[in-house]
């Protein structure tokens, strides 16, 4: 059974110049133990569609969908308090800016124990033991000592490890990682990706990685969705996407990689593709 099932998701924002459609009819499915990558440039609606699934968008956003189900439960019909019981526990999310997504006023230990208290109701000693266990799992040295540190005392890579530990604290069924390594150095990026993939395999989690980096897609995903301006352009398993991309947009995106440069100039998308041409091959 699929873990997350989204059909015809539409997200609109009210702006001064009328409604703006950030996500326009996107459908997707993630199975247990599967890694799905959503790729797209800024403004493609890749983050917004996942925030909509999590219910984290501000009230100004209008979210509609034919189907938005997690593990067979309808997410849209739920009351906010019911939804909060699932979000953060069974569906967890990691964000792009690890330092900004932690609260600077509290120790990292407090922030991870808060999750354990709210969702699992553990007592004080059990919370601390579990927090240390989680820190060790994500590779933070001197875990017990680190619990009393504040985010500003840690590096970006360490903060991202803390975020991963918090996300994993309740053994989620689905982990959504929104550009988890964009703000990090290449060597740290490698460590974090390796860590995520190891944990995903060990726990058999479903996972969605949102990224604009084709390299990250190639190194992590089983299946890939390519988005452009709120629409799904292509969906394929990772090998066929890189080997024989079907849509012109994906082909253009891959040829714009400096790795694939053949001549003196890099091919660019805007130079030979209009929006109509990109959407012509779009899938639902």
């Amino acid at each position, binding site marked *: 059974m699929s873990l997350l099932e989204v059909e015809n998701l539409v997200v609109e924002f009210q702006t001064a110049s009328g409604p703006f459609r950030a996500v326009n009819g996107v459908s997707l499915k993630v199975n247990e133990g599967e890694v799905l990558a959503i790729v797209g*440039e*800024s403004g493609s609606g890749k983050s917004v569609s996942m925030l909509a699934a999590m219910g984290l968008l501000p009230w100004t956003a209008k979210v509609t969908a034919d189907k938005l189900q997690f593990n067979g439960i309808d997410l849209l019909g739920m009351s906010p308090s019911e939804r909060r019981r699932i979000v953060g526990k069974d569906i967890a999310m990691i964000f792009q800016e690890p330092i900004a997504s932690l609260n600077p006023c509290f120790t990292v230990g407090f922030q991870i124990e808060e999750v354990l208290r709210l969702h699992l109701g553990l007592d004080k000693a059990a919370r601390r033991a579990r927090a240390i266990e989680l820190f060790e799992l994500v590779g933070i040295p001197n875990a017990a000592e680190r619990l009393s540190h504040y985010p500003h005392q840690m590096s*970006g890579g360490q903060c991202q490890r803390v975020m991963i530990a918090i996300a994993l604290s309740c053994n989620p069924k689905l982990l959504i990682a929104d550009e988890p390594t964009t703000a990090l*150095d*290449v*060597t*740290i*990026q*490698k460590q974090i*990706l390796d860590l995520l993939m190891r944990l995903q*395999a060990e726990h058999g989690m479903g996972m969605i990685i949102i990224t*604009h*980096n*084709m*390299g*990250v*897609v*190639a*190194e992590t995903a089983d299946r890939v969705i390519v988005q452009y301006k709120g629409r799904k352009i292509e969906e394929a398993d*990772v*090998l066929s996407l*890189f*080997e024989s991309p079907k849509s012109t947009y994906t082909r*253009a*995106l*891959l040829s*714009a*990689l*400096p*790795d694939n*440069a053949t001549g*003196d*100039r*890099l*091919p*660019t*998308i*805007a*130079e030979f593709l209009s929006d109509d041409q990109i959407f012509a091959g779009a899938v639902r």
Partner: protein
Amino acid sequence: MTPVLEARNLVRDYQIPGSLLKRGRTVHAVKGVSFAVDQGKTLAIVGESGCGKSTLARIVTMIDPATSGEMLIDGEKVDIARDGLTSEMRRKVQIVFQNPYGTLNPRKKIGDILSEPLIINTRMKADERRDKAMAMLKKVGLEEKHYGRYPHMFSGGQRQRVAIARALMLNPRLLVLDEPVSALDLSVQAQVLNLLADLQDEFQLTYVFISHDLSVVRYIADDVMVMYYGEAVEYGSREDVFSDPKHSYTKTLFAATPRADVDSIKERLARKAA
């Protein structure tokens, strides 16, 4: 031929002041780096955050003086700590920063942003300045109608074009590019890289290109210098560095860079299936 830029054993230390309970200390940001760039060539400086590459950019752009060591531009020794900075020197080196959303004054029109370096450093008349700004807009792929617009009306890629145009207004010999494409989308990144290559051909510009993205470096650089904790651990031509990295850190860096080719995907999937 004298290189446009030559650095000999550049060192930069920062003093961290102490407090009542803490003793002050010295951070060695750049520990003796030497390199040379010929006209029309690109030197790429690669490294992680905190390795001193931006400090080096500030020294080369003459924003900060070096603590010790020599820097020669066009064969002339430059020491801003002793001699100060003249508009003559400022004209030779210009810089483009990483984030085009932060480097353009939101309250100034594009035309004023482009003319400002001319007002400060030259005695050009207003109509000449205007003509020059218009011409430069076209050079970087924008249009004359953009002259009177404000930065918020432009996309990230267009803003980076404006930042590049501003840097070129004084006809510099050397352009320091501090992560110029890392805030941009893939397709826009390709456009800006193409623009930089075209401008280099046209004006015989010399680039110092700072980046942490090895695929971009491989595409644009002639020479590559890898920095690690303030030291240049590897320095050589692009072919040498990429085909035969000597230092263990360079090897780690290459191994960590995600690869987007079909063979490595097949390899990974095979590993996963096993």
